[in-house]
C-alpha cells in the first residue's frame, strides 16, 4: 500500500478484539463525541431541571391549590436522569455488541502497524491503510486506545492487554503527538 513515509513502524500490535472490548470502546467513542453525550452531563442536566422545578413550588402554590404540575415535572426529570445514567449506557453497549456480532471481520485476529503518519491494519481477509489525519479523535482508556472516525472503519481499537509498559508509553506518546488537541485520556 502506498504511503508517503518510508520509515519503519513505531510499533506493531497483534490482537483479537472481543465483543465486550468492542462494546466498551464503542461506548467510549460515543461518550467522547461531545460533553452532552456523557451520562454524567445528561443526568446532571435532568437533576438540575428537577431542582429548578422544585424551587418554583412555593411560587406555584401561591397561585394554585395543588402541586401536581411541578410534581409531574420533577418525576419526569428524575426518570430521565435515571434513564440517561443507568439504562442508556447499557443500551448503547448492547447495540455495540450487536454491531460486533453482525460484522465477522471485527472478530478476526489483526495485525496493526503504527507508523508515523498512518496505521496499517491487516487481517486474513483485509488490509487497510488509514492516515491519522483521517480520524476525528483518539481516546486513551485504561484498557485501550480508541481511535474514531476512520474512512474504512469507524473504530480502531488498540488493546493495551499484552503490551509492555514501554510499548504502551511509546504508542501513547506517539498518538498524543499525532492527534494533538484531538487526543483525550479518559478513566484516569
Amino acid at each position, binding site marked *: 500500500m502506498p504511503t508517503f513515509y518510508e520509515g519503519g513502524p513505531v510499533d506493531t500490535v497483534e490482537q483479537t478484539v472481543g465483543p465486550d472490548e468492542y462494546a466498551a470502546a464503542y461506548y467510549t467513542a460515543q461518550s467522547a463525541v461531545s460533553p452532552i453525550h456523557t451520562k454524567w452531563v445528561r443526568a446532571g442536566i435532568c437533576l438540575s431541571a428537577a431542582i429548578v422545578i422544585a424551587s418554583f413550588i412555593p411560587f406555584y402554590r401561591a397561585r394554585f391549590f395543588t402541586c401536581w404540575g411541578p410534581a409531574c415535572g420533577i418525576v419526569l426529570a428524575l426518570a430521565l436522569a435515571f434513564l440517561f445514567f443507568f439504562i442508556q449506557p447499557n443500551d448503547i453497549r448492547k447495540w455495540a455488541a450487536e454491531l460486533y456480532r453482525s460484522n465477522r471481520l*471485527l472478530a478476526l485476529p489483526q495485525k496493526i502497524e503504527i507508523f508515523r503518519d498512518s496505521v496499517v491494519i491487516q487481517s486474513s481477509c483485509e488490509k487497510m491503510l488509514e492516515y491519522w489525519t483521517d480520524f476525528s479523535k483518539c481516546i486513551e482508556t485504561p484498557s485501550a486506545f480508541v481511535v474514531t472516525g476512520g474512512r474504512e472503519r469507524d473504530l480502531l481499537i488498540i488493546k493495551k492487554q499484552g503490551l509492555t509498559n514501554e510499548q504502551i508509553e511509546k504508542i501513547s506518546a506517539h498518538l498524543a503527538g499525532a492527534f494533538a488537541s484531538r487526543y483525550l485520556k479518559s478513566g484516569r
Partner: protein
Amino acid sequence: MPESPISVSCLTTKFDYADFKAAAAKAAVRKSEKIILKVTGTVLILAAFLLKAFVYGNFYQDFIYAAMAAVGVIIGCFYDTIVLYAVRRHALSYFTANSERFIAQTTEFSEETITFQTERYTAVLPYEMLYKAYEDARVFIIYTGINEMKFIPKRAMNESECTRIHNILETKLQEKYQQEGAR
C-alpha cells in the same frame, strides 16, 4: 467450467453517493414500519373526516381536523418521498464537503469471494462473511456489518454484468439478499 470473475471499476460521483444513501435508507426500513406508517396515515385521515362529519366544530376545530388530514396524507403517502429527498440532499452536501474521501474502487465478483480494492483498502471476502446485500434500480450495496457497507453503482457495469452480479449475490446470500425496484 467456472465463469470468469466480473470486475467493476468506478470513481464515485456525488449522484452515485446520493443513490447509495437513498438505497441504504430504503433497505433500513422494515416492512412492519412501512405498514405502521400507512395505517397511521389512514387512521389520521379517517379520524379527521369522521370528526368533521359528526362533531360540531368551530373554525379552530376545523383547522385541527384539516391539519390531521394533511399529516395523515404526508405520513401515509409521501413519507418515503420526503425522507429520501432529505437523505439525498444530505448526501449531496456531505459529498461536496468531503469529496477527497471518495477514491476510485474496483470490485471483483468471483464464484467464491468478493474482492474490494482501492489504493488504501484491499479485502477478499468469502460470501458467507457478508452480513447482507441489497439491490435497487441504481446500486448494489454489500453489507459487511449492520453499519458497514460498500456500494457499486450500476452505471459502472453493463446489463449482462448486472444480471450476473445479481445472480451470484442471490445464489450465494439467499435470504440475506434483498432486492427492490431492480431493473
